[in-house]
């Protein structure tokens, strides 16, 4: 796998760019094909397990978009996830609203607005802020909101909000199981495609520029903070959608879903799977959750130590994560360039957006 070697020459004898073998689309298609029949092939427990992985996968995508593409180290993804989940849970319990068409959009908008508020504080200054400042700012935000939730009886304090009703659509309950699984899969696939398109757009090119030369790109006239603010807020929207689904899938929303522990867990999902690939963090969620489950069967108390060491080893020796073993750097960064029709026939076959 990886890049194809050496320069190629076209018929005119000029040097051409090295082509690279595209792996990501095959992995994406393979996973989607495997995910569709899954509920009919496994027991009920594993359908619930897989649904949770899909929901957390959505949360991991939000982090990958923010860090892997936007270059913003956010320890606040759980904040948006949790605030949105709490908001949807409160609306469902206090107002007896169960329609998925109300609750999930509300959760998404809540995630977006929470992220926008935090972005105003830690990102949208007159000058770009540092990675460390944003990391600490988002971590602090996540910590503060968790503490608030733990001490606020209206939102259930330490116990959170439990016994949530099922989501409904047109009067039909969306039970945890096959129906919920396909709703989660549909939302994840849709968000995935939209984020991929955005990251391969001219907007995505600016983000790639910011990641590589943040100080340089301001001299081209780009207001870096605005681009980061948009990505950060969209990340909040996606995390909020995941939070809304999570609350009704688990039937519960607690302070643990708001705080630094889950925020850090999301970072690990992405690092393990491979940041900047979108599919990597989803694979990271699946593998970490399966390993956690399997290890806990053998060593009930000490399994986090084994898992922690595994993650540490991977991050130290393979910072590009699992996907780094399969996907070349060239494919990960990708091309944004010539529209296909504008490129000549020879270049057009090789120079497609990744």
């Amino acid at each position: 796998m990886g890049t194809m070697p050496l320069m190629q020459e076209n018929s005119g004898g000029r040097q051409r760019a090295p082509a690279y073998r595209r792996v990501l689309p095959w992995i994406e298609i393979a996973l989607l094909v495997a995910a569709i029949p899954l509920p009919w092939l496994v027991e009920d427990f594993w359908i619930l397990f897989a649904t949770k992985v899909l929901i957390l996968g959505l949360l991991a995508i939000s982090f990958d978009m923010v860090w892997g593409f936007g270059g913003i180290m956010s320890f606040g993804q759980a904040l948006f996830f949790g605030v949105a989940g709490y908001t949807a849970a409160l609306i469902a319990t206090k107002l007896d609203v169960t329609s998925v068409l109300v609750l999930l959009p509300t959760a998404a908008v809540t995630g977006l607005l929470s992220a926008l508020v935090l972005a105003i504080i830690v990102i949208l200054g007159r000058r770009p802020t540092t990675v460390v400042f944003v990391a600490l700012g988002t971590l602090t935000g996540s910590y503060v909101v968790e503490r608030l939730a733990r001490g606020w009886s209206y939102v259930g304090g330490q116990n959170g909000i439990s016994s949530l009703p099922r989501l409904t659509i047109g009067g039909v309950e969306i039970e945890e199981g096959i129906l919920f699984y396909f709703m989660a899969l549909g939302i994840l696939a849709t968000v995935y495609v939209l984020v991929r398109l955005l990251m391969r757009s001219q907007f995505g090119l600016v983000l790639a520029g910011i990641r590589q030369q943040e100080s340089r790109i301001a001299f081209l006239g780009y207001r870096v903070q605005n681009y980061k603010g948009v990505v950060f807020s969209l990340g909040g929207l996606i995390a909020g959608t995941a939070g809304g689904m999570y609350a009704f899938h688990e039937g519960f929303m607690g302070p643990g879903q708001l705080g630094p522990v889950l925020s850090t867990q999301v970072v690990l999902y992405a690092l393990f799977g491979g940041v900047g690939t979108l599919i990597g963090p989803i694979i990271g969620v699946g593998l970490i959750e399966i390993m956690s489950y399997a290890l806990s069967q053998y060593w009930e108390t000490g399994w986090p130590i084994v898992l922690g060491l595994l993650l540490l080893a991977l991050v130290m020796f393979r910072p590009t994560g699992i996907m780094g073993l399969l996907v070349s750097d060239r494919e990960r960064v990708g091309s944004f360039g010539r529209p296909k029709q504008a490129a000549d026939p020879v270049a057009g076959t090789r120079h497609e957006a990744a």
Partner: protein
Amino acid sequence: MKLLEARAISKVYGSLAALDGVDLYVRANEFHGLIGPNGSGKSTLLKCIAGAEFATSGSIVLAGQDITRATSPTRSRAGLSLKFQITAIFPELSVYDNVLLSVQAGESMAAQIFSSSRRRLDEKVMAFLERFRLDDRRDDLAGVLSHGQQQWLEIAIALAREPKVLLLDEPTAGMSPQERRATGELLAPIRSHCSLLIVEHDLDFIRDICDSLTVLDQGRVVATGSTAEVQKDERVKEAYLANV
């Protein structure tokens, strides 16, 4: 007509005055050289004009607009473009994408999100690549270009913003004599629509392309005027040329 005016610029770092009341003017369609010994404040002045640093005092006016306290993006949108001393291309992007990044900077964020201007801008990107003899390398990663080609790419990136004034900090550093000559040929045509302020150690290159010069020494202007006048100035010979 004075297009760029830097008036009484001072820049102080702690107790060190890097610039002390420097005046500098660049006229429309003029190539202006900024020379001086190492540590004379040339790059600092360029950074103050570009917005990488803020002057401690003084004012900078571009085409009648005061940009003294403006941020770098605002200065860029006002018509100022910069090529850094240390090459600052985007090494993991293709050569084409490097130029596209600059060409599309004037587009709205919505247009960028929907990639609606990509096709329209293609011709412009290719024109810049052809002009800077990089069209054959358009699909290559910018990081694998030779040093000279990277310098050209950065000049192309700076020019693709269609600036009123282009600031170049040592554009020929590390280039072979052939590449230096080619760089002069590449820059000559921009005179029709753009002024140039250039910091350069290669005095032959400066003499060949610049209409006027400002000489700095220890943060102060030693001489300024046409290239021919400044070359004859005894103070310049003492302060700089004799030491080269």
